[in-house]
């Protein structure tokens, strides 16, 4: 069984996020959790669901589009998300974000993502079949 998980990688000015999993979709979902963890260390309730869809010319650009869609939905709804679900077919992503309204006292948000960048952008499958997606997010 291939593991799934996320991590942050260092960038001098901003923050690198990386998600890995047995499928491309799961790697994107894990990267969503990495984005959330860049903002808060608190547990995020997953009471409300937001459905999203996005497309791009290739997998790597789709990853940036996915993160930017999360950032946009966070900004206009004043929400933070704690659970992600992704389906990908032919560079089209359909997904759902579960979360709650930002509670400054409880979430203590450390930063506010501005946008996902093309810096250190990679979406690749390793020899053992694991997918990983990563890039730097401007915060």
């Amino acid at each position, binding site marked *: 069984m291939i593991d799934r998980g996320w991590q942050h*990688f260092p960038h001098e000015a901003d923050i690198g996020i990386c998600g890995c999993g047995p499928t491309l979709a799961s790697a994107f979902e894990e990267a969503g959790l990495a984005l959330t963890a860049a903002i808060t260390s608190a547990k995020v309730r997953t009471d409300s669901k937001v459905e999203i869809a996005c497309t791009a010319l290739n997998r790597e650009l789709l990853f940036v589009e996915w993160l930017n869609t999360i950032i946009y939905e966070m900004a206009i709804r004043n929400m*933070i998300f704690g659970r992600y679900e992704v389906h990908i077919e032919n560079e089209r992503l359909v997904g759902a974000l579960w979360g709650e309204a930002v509670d400054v006292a409880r979430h203590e948000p450390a930063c506010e993502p501005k946008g996902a*960048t093309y*810096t250190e952008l990679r979406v690749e499958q390793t020899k053992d079949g694991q997918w990983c997606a990563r890039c730097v997010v*401007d*915060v």
Partner: protein
Amino acid sequence: MDLSRLTRIRETAWKIEPVGTMRVPAIIFGDEALIRAMDDKVYTQAANVAMLPGIVRASYAMPDAHWGYGFPIGGVAAFDAEAGGVVSAGGVGFDISCGVRTMLTGIRVADIMLVQRSLADSFFQQIPAGLGSEGAIELDALNLDAMLKGGARWAVAAGYGEERDLGRIEERGCAADARPEYVSERAKKRQRREMGTLGSGNHYLEVQAVAEIFDVRASEAYGLVPDEAVITIHCGSRGLGHQIGTDYLKEMLVAAEEAGITLPDRELACAPIASDTGQRYLGAMRAAVNCALANREILGHLTRRIWHHFFPDADMSLLFDVSHNTCKVETHKVDGKEKRLFVHRKGATRAFGPGHASIPDSLRATGQPVLIGGSMGTGSYVLAGVTTSEEMAFSSACHGAGRAMSRHAAAKQWNGREVGDELYKKGIVIRSPSMRGVAEEAPGAYKDVGAVVLAAEQAGLAKRVARLEPLICIKG
């Protein structure tokens, strides 16, 4: 950074000779210690910028340069439209027109200390800061477009500022040729409830003491008096600017390919200035500049309201308001001829020397104020533009201390509450919605701002006028 890869051309200027597809050299400013401590990525990114079409003279990196995305943070590059020059969304960044304003208060530091904690609490409660905060001003579509056209002038006309401020803001408070129609609905939607908010990350509002004067004449011209308090606000164009950056970065990736431009890094996505995408980006970016100018003017207005509650008779005038993530059309001398250039500054401040027509009359003889934000523990600086900066780097200087350590590493190394306690022992009161945010912005995560501004002075980019020490810091 490995010094052996650079040619030292002056004490504080280092050259990357053009190789491969570099069209011009890259020049990095800094003393030996600053250059040694710089990430190798600054070298790569400065060299990559030198490969873009229509770049003039050189790609520059300021003494506070650090690893950015596309351009280094602290990067400066000028492009000639007539030579196929480009405009790059990555060369401006997501936080378009992020900048700094400093307000004079005329209040002695001793009087601040009497109310320091309650003043900090009032700012923290009344200035919306951090993720999840919302401003009290909600704009409908018509007013949003008016704000995007009018900038700080719109804010003043709407009652959120003072007429006299406008002369102390770059472009006199309003970027010309802003085109709200080229700003996406998504960008506008992100901004509706964000006017008058500080933002997050390294954005802040600080009450500072004028702690040291380097140039008495310049400090007098700027109204900086030793042992008096000033207030500095650092923030930008909020969600609107971030979304414009996102939108056009994506579009410019396609535009660059269509124009036959080979990008050394996708983050340098760009379009010929003369192209449809290039022109639309410039119109949208100027709208974001106006958004940032309006936002800082509103924050200045809120600041005055709070301040007057504590000091009813204080006369709070604006020293200056500068942006450090921009692309501006400027005239510069290149090979003895005046050229109209599109100057990108990403984490770099415009620094016009004495006599420049863009500087307000009252400051023209002294040079443009250059406001440098340091870290919350070490202080900030006010510099003045100098004439040599034109030749050195198209009249540009540094913008801050520059990070020496990633947020990730800083959060591991420090505890926010302990950082706050340590600073309080030094007489500095911190207020922030996030202790982890305080740890990520710990003073130790930044370079020595004193070394950065000294290098800027030695390099002929700007001269030091005054050093400011923080008394109260509100972090987003």
